C-alpha cells in the first residue's frame, strides 16, 4: 500500500475557479495522504471492469464519468465546516444576505413539494440555518448571532469560512438549480458522523443508518459466530458511510478489517478522506472497482457483506426529485429495468464470497424488491442462506434484506 497525495480543490463545490472570491486554502490543506490500493491503477481498473448493468442509458451518465480528462472534478473538496475562517463580513452585510436568502426560500412555498416531492420552504429555512452554522467559526452560535444582528452594531465584523459573495451564489444554486444542500456545504450528517460529500458521490440517506444497527445487532446476537473478527465488505461504499459506521460498531480489538469498494474514483477518494478523518485507515481499506472484483482473494472467506446498491428502476429516474435526479450520480441510483440488477448480482456474490455463517444486509427500494429477493434466495439460490429476513425502515417501508450464509 502506498500513500498518494491528493490535492484538495479549494473552491466551494462547483464554484467557478475564476470567481473573484475563489477559495484558496492554506498549504497544509493541499497535501493529504490517502491510502490507495497499489494493485489497481484507476484507469486500468475502470476500463477493464464490466459492470453488471442492463440499463441502456449508460451512455448518458453524467459527470461521475471515470475519465481522467475530468481530473479536476475528481479531487476531493474540503467540506465548508472544515475550512479555516479566513473571511469576514460585517454583521449588517450578513444580515442582508440572511434576509435575502430567507425570502428566497420562503418564495418557494410548496412549489417543489407539489412538483416532485422536493423540499418545502420551511425545510429550506432550516437548511439556511445549517449553512450559516457551517459557515461560521466553531463555537459561534448562529441563533445568538442572529439576535445580535438586531441588537449589535452593524459594523461589527463576523468571521466566515466562505466569502459573503459565495454565500449568495451558493444559496442561489440551492434554490434555483435545486442543488442538494449536502453538496452546498460539502457534508452530510449521518448517524453520529459528519461525512464529506460532493458531486459524484451519493449522499447517504437516513434510512441507511439502520443498516449499521442491523450489523451491530447481528454481531451481538451471534456472539458464537464470531462475526466481529475477520473481513467485512461494504460494496459501492460511496462516501464510505456504511463502512465507517460498521467499523465503529464492530468495536475495537480482534483482527478485523472492512473493505470498502466503489467503481467511482471520486467516491473512492471521498471515502478515503472520510475514513482518514475518523482515523480508521488501519481498519478500513478503500478499493476502487466493481462489486466483488477487488475482493477476489476473499472468495468464501468474507465474514460480512453490506451494501446499498443502486436500486431505482431506470424508468423512475426521470421523475425523481430534482435534487436527486439532476445532481446525484446515476451510477449510484439506477438499478436497471426493475432496479434489481445489482441486488441480484450481490445475492449471487454473497453466496460465493461469504464464509459459512457469514452475514449479509442489503438495502432495497421497498416491499416489492424485498419480496422478490427473499423469494429468489429461497428458491433460485436454495441451500445458500439461512434466516433470511426483511426489515423495515422508520417510515414503515420494507427496506432491508438480511440473512446468513448456510
Amino acid at each position, binding site marked *: 500500500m502506498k500513500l498518494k497525495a491528493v490535492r484538495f480543490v479549494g473552491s466551494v463545490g462547483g464554484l467557478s475557479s475564476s470567481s473573484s472570491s475563489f477559495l484558496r486554502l492554506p498549504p497544509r490543506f493541499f497535501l493529504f495522504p490517502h491510502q490507495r490500493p497499489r494493485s489497481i491503477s484507476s484507469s486500468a481498473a475502470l476500463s477493464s471492469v464490466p459492470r453488471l448493468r442492463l440499463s441502456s442509458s449508460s451512455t448518458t451518465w453524467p459527470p461521475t464519468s471515470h475519465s481522467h480528462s475530468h481530473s479536476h472534478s475528481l479531487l476531493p473538496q474540503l467540506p465548508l465546516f472544515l475550512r479555516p475562517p479566513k473571511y469576514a463580513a460585517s454583521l449588517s452585510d450578513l444580515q442582508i444576505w440572511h434576509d435575502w436568502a430567507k425570502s428566497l426560500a420562503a418564495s418557494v412555498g410548496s412549489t417543489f413539494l407539489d412538483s416532485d416531492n422536493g*423540499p418545502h420552504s420551511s425545510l429550506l429555512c432550516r437548511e439556511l440555518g445549517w449553512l450559516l452554522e457551517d459557515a461560521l467559526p466553531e463555537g459561534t452560535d448562529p441563533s445568538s448571532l442572529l439576535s445580535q444582528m438586531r441588537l449589535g452594531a452593524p459594523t461589527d465584523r463576523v468571521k466566515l469560512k466562505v466569502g459573503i459573495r459565495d454565500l449568495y451564489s451558493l444559496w442561489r444554486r440551492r434554490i434555483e438549480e435545486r442543488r442538494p444542500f449536502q453538496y452546498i456545504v460539502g457534508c452530510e450528517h449521518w448517524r453520529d458522523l459528519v461525512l464529506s460529500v460532493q458531486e459524484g458521490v*451519493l449522499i447517504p440517506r437516513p434510512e441507511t443508518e439502520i443498516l449499521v444497527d442491523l450489523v451491530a445487532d447481528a454481531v451481538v446476537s451471534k456472539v458464537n459466530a464470531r462475526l466481529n473478527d475477520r473481513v467485512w465488505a461494504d460494496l459501492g461504499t460511496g462516501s464510505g458511510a456504511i463502512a465507517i459506521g460498521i467499523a465503529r460498531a464492530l468495536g475495537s480489538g480482534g483482527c478485523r478489517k472492512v473493505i470498502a469498494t466503489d467503481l467511482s474514483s471520486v467516491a473512492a477518494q471521498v471515502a478515503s478522506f472520510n475514513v482518514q478523518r475518523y482515523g480508521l485507515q488501519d481498519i478500513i481499506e478503500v478499493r476502487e472497482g466493481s462489486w466483488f472484483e477487488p475482493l477476489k482473494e476473499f472468495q468464501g472467506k468474507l465474514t460480512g457483506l453490506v451494501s446499498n446498491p443502486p436500486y431505482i428502476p431506470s424508468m423512475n429516474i426521470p421523475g425523481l426529485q430534482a435534487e436527486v435526479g439532476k445532481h446525484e450520480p446515476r451510477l449510484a441510483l439506477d438499478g436497471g429495468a426493475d432496479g434489481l440488477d445489482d441486488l441480484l448480482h450481490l445475492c449471487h456474490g454473497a453466496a460465493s464470497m461469504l464464509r459459512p455463517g457469514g452475514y449479509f444486509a442489503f438495502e432495497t427500494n421497498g416491499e416489492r424488491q424485498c419480496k422478490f429477493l427473499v423469494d429468489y434466495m429461497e428458491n433460485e439460490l436454495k441451500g445458500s442462506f439461512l434466516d433470511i429476513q426483511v426489515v423495515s425502515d422508520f417510515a414503515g417501508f420494507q427496506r432491508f434484506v438480511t440473512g446468513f450464509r448456510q
Partner: protein
Amino acid sequence: MRLGRSRSGSSVPTNLVRSLFSSLPGPRTAIPSSSHRSASPVESSSTAGSSSSVPRILNPPFGSCRNLSHQKGTFSAPAYDIVKNIIRSSCSSSSSLVSRRRYFGGVRLLSNQAAVEASTSDGLTVEGILSSQWTILDESEGDWKSHAAAIAQSIHLIKKRLQWKKLLVRFQVLSAQLEKPDIWNDPAHAGRLSREQGSLLSRMKEVVEFERELLENIDMIKLAREENDSELELESLNALVRMRRISKEKELEALLAGEQDPCSCYIEVQAGAGGTESMDWAAMVMQMYKLWAQRRGYGVTVVDEMSGDIAGIKRATIKVDGEYAFGYAKSEVGVHRLVRISPFDSNKRRHTSFAAVAVIPIQGDGSTRVQINESDLRIDRFRSGGAGGQSVNKTESAIRIVHIPTGITVTCQNERSQHMNKASAMAVLQSRLDQLERARQAQMNAEHTQSLTDISWGNQIRTYVMHPYRMVKDLRTNFEVSDPDSVLDGDIDGFILSYLSASLDKDEDDRLYWEGG
C-alpha cells in the same frame, strides 16, 4: 416520629446532628486548643499569636455520655440509636469519640439546658442573637453586634429555606433505613437513599459550621476586648464582615436546595387554543426563555420545534445546559397568559392567549434512571412521500418515539441526522420517564405532594398584559413589572427569585408535621 413544637424539643435533633458533625472530618475554622494543637502543629503555629489565651474560652467539656443520655430522654430511642451508631462507626473507638467531642464539639456542649444549642462561652446562641434584636447597621459600620445580627438573620432565613426541621427528620429517617441489615439487597434503592443522605448531610454541615464560625468570632471579639488585643479584635471583626457578605450568597443558594435543582433541564412550551395568535405567543415565551438562558450563560439547544402554519410555534422543546438550570426554570412551570391587541386580527381586537410551560430536569449520571425497554417503543419517521431511500433526498430526518406503556410521545427534528434526532428524542423520553417515576414515588411519600402540583399543567401562573395597560404580574407572588418588553427579553430573574423565596419562606411550621405520626 413526631417532633415537638417547643423550642427545647425541636432543638434536640439539631444538637444530635451537630454532635454527629463534630465527629466527622471536614474543613473547620480552628478553635485552637491544647490537644488540637498537638494534633496539628502546623495549624497551631499559624495561630500562635492568640493560642495562648484561647483555651480559656473553652468551657469544661460536658461528658458525652451524660449529654447523650439527656438527649435520649427527649428524643425517641431509635433515632437516638441511629445517630449514636453513626457517631460510633465513624470513630475508631469510644475514647476517640470522647476526645473529638471534647475538643471539636466541646464549645457547644454546655452543662445547662441551653447546651443543646451552639453558643458562645457566655451562652449566646444564634437564636439569642436574633431575639435580642440588635440594630442592624450598614456594613461599613464597624459594630460587631450589627454584623452578628445580620448574619444570624441570614442563618435563620437559610434554615427556613432549607426546611431545616424537615431536613433533620428526613435525615433521621434515611439513616434509620440505611441501618437496616437488608437494605443493600436492593442496591439501587440503597444507593439512592445513601446519596440523598450524603447530600442532606453536606447541606446541614455547611449551615452548622457557618453558625459555629459566627459564634466563635463573637467569642474572639469578646476575648480580645478583655485582653485589650486590638489586632485580634479587628481580625475577628473583619471575619464577621466577610461572613456577612457570604451569608447573602448562601441565602440565594439555599433557594436551590432541591435534589434536582443543580440539573440541566428541558423547557417545553406549547401553544394553547386560539390559532395563530396563541402560536405567536408560544414563540414569544420560548424566545423569552432562550434569551434568559443566554443571559445566565447557559447553553441553549433547540431539540424540537413545530412551527405554526402562519407564525409562531405549536410547540417546542429546548435543552438548557448549566448548573442550577432546573432549579431556576422550575419556577416557570404553568400556564402563561397574554392579553394584547392581536397583530393577526384585522379588526384590532383584544385577544387573550395561553401558552403552557413544562420543565423537565435532566438527571446526572449518578442517579438512577428508569430502564427503557426497547420493545415498549414505537419509533417512526415522518414519511417524506415517495418511495424513500435513494429516491428522496431531504435533509429532514425527524423522529417520533412513542413509549407505549405510558403513551408519552417525543419528537425531535432539529438535529442534522436521523440517528442524532433519535438519540435526542430518547434523551427527552428518558427525562420524562424519570420525572414521571419521581412523581409516582413522591405520591407514595406524602411528603412531596407539593411537587406534584408543581408539575401539573393546569395552573395559570403569570399574566402579561400589553393592552390597555402594560404589566406582567405573577399570580403566585403578586410580583409585578410594568415593562413587558424587558420581561420578554429574558429578564425574568425577579419573578423566579420572588417565587422561589415566597414558596420556601412560608412558615416552616406548616410543614413540620408532614410525616403524620
